């Protein structure tokens, strides 16, 4: 299988006839779970991820008394892939959540100052929870897109006079700074060629991968290399170019 896959990618061919830099069909559906403050289902080919945002109030960290906070978690549901099992999160799920968390956090796409309720006492916390429904490869990109789509869909809940959370949403959206919103593309390497958006069979044979989060202004907000093969500087440069093009296309679908 490995040899066959290598020869296919070496000939710049894919299982499904796509080009190396071509994504499968991508769809984004918002507002899929109405008790969530924001939610989205993203499908890339047969890969499917559902994301939801819930807001809660919490005490701020002492070093940032007027900043809200956020957390990304991911669960690889055991129905999504026969290799996934129930129980504590696998290392893959932890990596995926942390890569996406860093992309959202470091891009500063959420205006944390606006998530302050009372300085030093009470701030908003955004929980961004990701569930893999079906795995046919490229989970990081699908999950990252779902996280962003759910955040953009989210409304702030109402508080009562004592700042207790009400189960009712206001008409105020979560404070998102549009220009900073990062999208993520993971570039994979098999043999000497780089390509994007693998199906599961391709992904299983990859030598290396690199996930790159890029803002609409073209800034790189996050990177994560995976796999046990080294990449050259030239390959990293090519990967960034591939990711730029791919995230530009994803951005059009998100709007």
């Amino acid at each position: 299988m490995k040899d066959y896959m290598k020869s296919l990618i070496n000939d710049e061919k894919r299982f499904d006839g796509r080009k190396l830099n071509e994504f499968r069909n991508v769809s984004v559906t918002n507002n899929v779970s109405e008790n969530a403050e924001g939610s989205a289902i993203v499908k890339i080919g047969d890969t499917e991820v559902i994301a939801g945002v819930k807001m809660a109030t919490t005490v701020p960290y002492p070093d940032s008394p007027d900043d809200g906070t956020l957390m990304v978690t991911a669960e690889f549901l055991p129905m999504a892939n026969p290799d996934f099992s129930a129980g504590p999160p696998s290392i893959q799920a932890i990596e995926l959540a942390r890569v996406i968390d860093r992309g959202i956090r470091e891009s500063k796409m959420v205006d944390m100052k606006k998530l302050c309720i009372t300085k030093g006492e009470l701030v908003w916390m955004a929980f961004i929870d990701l569930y893999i429904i079906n795995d046919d490869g490229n989970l990081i990109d699908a999950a990252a897109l779902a996280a962003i789509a759910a955040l953009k869909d989210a409304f702030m809940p109402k508080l009562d006079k004592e700042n207790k959370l009400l189960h009712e949403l206001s008409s105020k959206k979560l404070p998102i700074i549009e220009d900073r919103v990062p999208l993520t593309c993971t570039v994979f390497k098999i043999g000497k060629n780089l390509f994007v958006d693998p199906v599961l069979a391709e992904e299983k044979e990859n030598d290396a991968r690199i996930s790159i989060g890029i803002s609409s202004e073209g800034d790189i907000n996050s990177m994560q290399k995976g796999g046990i093969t080294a990449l050259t500087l030239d390959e990293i440069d090519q990967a960034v170019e591939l990711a730029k093009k791919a995230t530009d296309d994803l951005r059009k679908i998100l709007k």
Partner: protein
Amino acid sequence: MAKAFKRNDGRKVDEMRPMEAKLGVVKSAEGSAMFKAGKTIAIAAVRGPREVVPAHKQRADRGLLRCTYDLLSFSVNDRKRPGPSRRSSEIGMVIENALLPAMDLSDWPYTSVDLYVYITQADAGTRCAGINAAALALADAGIPMKELVSAVAVGKVDGQVIVDIDKHEEDQGEFPTDIPVAMMPNSGKVTLLQLDGKITKDELNSALKLAEKSCKEIQEVQKQAIRAKYVSKEESK
């Protein structure tokens, strides 16, 4: 008194919420289905029959059914901490027990049929929606069943016996009584019965009668979903 009873969403006391069912919602699984009742949405997927891991749980005389049930963290008002809980473990077990009477796994010793049920949007009745989706997922996976299993929560709210309780009704009045019921509608056998609240024996009997009638309606929706996937339009004419 019964005539004066008004439901929050205007339904009759014996009226189910609008239902939808669809097969094949998890592409890579052997079988899968979505079942929606009002605002409650469940998805279920089947993997197997496959070799049991860990091996000491294998049975030489029959295959196992193992069910995982959970609410997605954002499917409810107060975020649920992701991952299994005592509640989800118990519900996984009662779903297994609700489905097993309709199944015969004696042809698959040493294997398990792994069933996954997740609630993506919750408005009460999640285990019942889960069972309805699960029965369809098993059918979609080609697991032999004597008949489909259908489930609904009946109960008593403000002294009135009603069917398919939603979240609003679950918290209404002094002793709201919630009774999830699963049945094999053709043979009329009950495979899941739980109750909490306060209800008389007579009321319970009328609630169960109501559940029986509703499970037949649910089975029709389930059958329709199977036809939609497996019977071509020509054949169904």
